[in-house]
């Protein structure tokens, strides 16, 4: 499975994490390509801080969304990604251009979950070879 993760919206990151963790529980190999807005969310100084991530749709409901997640004891979006990597062969790649847009030049600028920085050729090759594609 290949996930093109364009969004940096906290609700979509959470949804992507749930799908990714579910796929990992199913032992699926997954490659996640983090694009444009998504790349910002994976920066070290952004990823763990919900205050730095907005909700693209219905931004006024962000606090309600986060409060519900907490009440339901749903893990933060990063932990879904961590769990997925623990359970299965999950790779997370940041698009080189997307990284540069937000000042992330090196893989070390991003959280440890990120495996590498790649170009669009690798994204396209993965899409060609994968049987399931998700764009989030």
């Amino acid at each position, binding site marked *: 499975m290949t996930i093109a993760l364009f969004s940096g919206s906290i609700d979509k990151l959470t949804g992507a994490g*749930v799908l990714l*963790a*579910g796929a*990992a*529980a*199913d*032992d699926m190999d997954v490659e996640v390509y983090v694009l444009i807005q998504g790349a910002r969310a994976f920066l070290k100084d952004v990823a763990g801080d919900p205050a730095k991530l907005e909700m693209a749709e219905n931004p006024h409901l962000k606090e309600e969304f986060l409060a519900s997640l907490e009440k*339901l*004891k*749903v*893990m933060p979006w990063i932990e879904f990604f961590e*769990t997925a990597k*623990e*359970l299965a062969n999950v790779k997370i790649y940041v698009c080189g251009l997307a990284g540069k847009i937000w000042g992330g030049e090196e893989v070390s600028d991003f959280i440890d979950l990120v495996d590498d920085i790649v170009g669009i050729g690798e994204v396209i090759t993965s899409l060609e070879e994968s049987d399931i594609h998700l764009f989030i």
Partner: protein
Amino acid sequence: MDQEELKNLKVDKSVDARAVACPGPLLAAKKAVRELESGQLMEVLSADSATKRDIPKWAQKKGHEYLGTIEESGFFRIYMKVK
């Protein structure tokens, strides 16, 4: 298995995932099953109604044997035998 047989099972591992919503119980089951050997029995406790369908489907797909579910007050006990 009928409910009486399920109640009398002696499980090798019990996973209490009642505090977490979907997909927490499935992830807990996936982690726990790695610690078990073929033929061992596991129960997953979940208060999430979606898990009642999720875990049997996952177990079947992964080759484990789904044995049945007991509905308790406010939660489920889902039983499976590891492949």
